[in-house]
């Protein structure tokens, strides 16, 4: 690849991810392979058991999506169709076919139904995730679900998974989460040394690479990026908020960064910055720490109260000094599509311009997408020019 899509030196990490996927498919080392869909599934347990594991979050090709649609109504999002289509024995994705066991916490209705369809292709354990994140009973219940999850994983590997193993993994993953937070922190600079596409690739690595491999590669890159010199450019700063931005679903960010030249500086979605905002407790009962930690993480819109999600979103936009927000949700998304007005109104009320985009994995609407995003950036640039003008007038007269 000579024409890298990355601005930072991410090709070695990209290569590690590709190699890991090949090893996963080829069953190198003969370890059992586990997959999961959602950022509410603690990989700490999978790693403690010595499994090979990955989050399954690829955006399906049109063929895979339509394969998935055979099992659903059309009003399922393209992500849930992608998951089903990729597991389907006809067509499908060899990476998904290599999975020995699927774990999924019940998030939205579409993904729950997807998991129930996928059960016919691969052994699947569907676990419960409480919605009321602030209730003490939710925490106790979620802890008991995590214990079921641990027992299920132990059965898969044929040995016990001890408390101290889990505690060690919590500490290890905290370290990784902190490092990803540090990377994102660099994006608060007026001229971020890494693009939104770069950060999405780092997150992709989090979901495919073993944490030990990740730490070695990422720490080196972080040191390098932290020393990057500011060349003085001040790109327009955007936050992306909304539904999952699946592995391969890059057309919006590519359009923003590579065609238009603006920057995504932070993501309020579960495949960007959001899952790394929180650090888990490292002492005491590790299962209570997982239950609390995953419920306390920056919440998905499927959780209640929705105000927590709205507060996080507006807070993040302010923290990163964004010029505007693009709120993008998958068509038919029951979480982010249905709560879009709450997000749009709250962000607008906080003084940030927002562009709403409903999206899917087709490619036919790229022209319209481009017009919308370009026009939005023209609006933001106009506002920035006005601010520059006002400031310089104040400077002259004041």
């Amino acid at each position, binding site marked *: 690849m000579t024409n890298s899509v990355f601005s930072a030196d991410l090709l070695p990490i990209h290569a590690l991810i590709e190699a890991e996927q090949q090893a996963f498919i080829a069953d190198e080392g003969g370890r059992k392979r586990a997959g999961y869909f959602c950022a509410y599934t603690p990989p700490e347990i999978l790693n403690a058991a010595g499994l090979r594991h990955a989050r399954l979050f690829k955006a399906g090709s049109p063929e895979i999506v339509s394969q998935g649609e055979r099992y659903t109504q059309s009003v399922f999002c393209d992500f849930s169709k992608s998951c089903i289509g990729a597991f389907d024995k006809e067509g499908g994705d060899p990476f998904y076919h290599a999975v020995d066991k699927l774990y999924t916490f019940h998030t939205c209705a579409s993904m729950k139904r997807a998991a129930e369809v996928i059960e016919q292709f691969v052994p699947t354990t569907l676990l419960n995730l409480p919605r009321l994140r602030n209730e003490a009973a939710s925490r106790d219940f979620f802890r008991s679900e995590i214990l079921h999850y641990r027992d299920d994983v132990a059965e898969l590997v044929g040995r016990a998974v001890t408390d101290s193993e889990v505690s060690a993994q919590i500490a290890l993953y905290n370290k990784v989460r902190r490092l990803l937070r540090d990377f994102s922190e660099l994006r608060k600079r007026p001229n971020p040394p890494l693009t939104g596409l770069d950060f999405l690739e780092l997150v992709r690595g989090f979901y495919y690479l073993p944490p030990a491999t990740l730490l070695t590669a990422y720490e080196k890159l972080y040191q390098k990026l932290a020393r990057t010199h500011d*060349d*003085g*450019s*001040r*790109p*327009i700063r955007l936050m992306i908020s909304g539904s999952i931005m699946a592995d391969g679903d890059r057309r919006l960010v590519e359009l923003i960064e590579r065609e*238009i*030249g*603006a920057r995504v500086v932070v993501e309020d979605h579960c495949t960007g910055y959001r899952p790394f905002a929180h650090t888990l407790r490292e002492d005491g009962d590790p299962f209570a720490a997982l239950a609390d930690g995953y419920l306390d993480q920056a919440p998905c819109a499927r959780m209640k109260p929705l105000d927590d999600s709205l507060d996080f979103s507006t807070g993040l936009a302010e923290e990163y000094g964004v010029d505007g927000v693009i709120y993008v949700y998958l068509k038919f998304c029951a979480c982010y599509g249905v709560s879009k007005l709450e997000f*749009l109104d709250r962000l607008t009320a906080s003084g940030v*311009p927002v562009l*709403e985009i*409903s999206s899917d994995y087709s490619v*036919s*609407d790229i*022209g*319209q997408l481009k*017009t*919308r995003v*370009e*026009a939005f*950036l*023209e*609006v933001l*640039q*106009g506002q*920035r*020019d*006005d601010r*520059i*003008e006002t400031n*310089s007038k104040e400077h002259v007269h004041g």
Partner: protein
Amino acid sequence: MKISDIIGSDPWKPAPAAPVVGFDIGSRGSKGVLLTPDSIYTTFIPTGLYMQETADELLARLLKEAKLRRRDIAYVVGTGYGRISLAYKDIPYQVVTEITCHASGAHALNPRTRTIIDIGGQDSKAIKVDPATGRVLEFVMNDKCAAGTGRFLEKAAVLLGLELDKLGDVSLQATEPAVISSQCVVFAESEMISLRARGERHKDGAAHANIAAGIHFASARRVKSLLGRVGTEPDLVFTGGVANNPGMRHALETLIGARFVPAPIDMIYAGALGAAVHAGRHQAAAAAAKQAGSAAPPRRRAATAAEKPALAHTA
């Protein structure tokens, strides 16, 4: 045409210092506007397969009409979905989206413009404009779907055996507009077919009118839904090719409960005019920069080179 004939004798703020051109290369038709310090020239041709050829023909026509030569043109701005495919070696060229251009074009003709509905061949948009600057404050564009666009009306005209430009007039003769509930073109089309197939009034002019009116109302409902976030603050202005359809105008005014402000020119040219206005501004900025030399770059261009691509795509 003299600008003073259109907007009166007061000085016209958007007037350029030198001849400039705006192109709006749409999905169905392409529009060109040439502005000189005191005149405006417009031209329209169907969009061809090759956007550059279409733009070249528009330019040739405009130059002929204005009795100018190619080298007299100081700046070109392109908009519309074909904007990206244009390139000029000899004339400075920029692209601006049609959303910004429709706002600038409507604002240039009427500075009280606050809300724009633009319906073109494949898109419809609602735009909220800052009357102080002509800048876009907020906009909503239709989904990838032909409901509420010119394409939908084209299909309906074919099914009714009418010329497209008669469809609106015929719809105004309706005695009882047919109920077409579907928001989807394909289903609306089947609804039309079943309405037509009811038979006994097949040859009846009122049936045609009623179905045509139903089509306009179905389409207008779709467009009205775009106004949700943008609002309907007056002055309300209708731009784009469909602005010439009196049936659509009537249906929208009925549903919104407000009147469009009459436009001084054919509003199919609003986008191209806005593009020409932007060309005038770019020309002025370039001239100012040249005069000031490298020692004192103009304040408006304070943005650094690396930032510029965020807005200005130099071909």
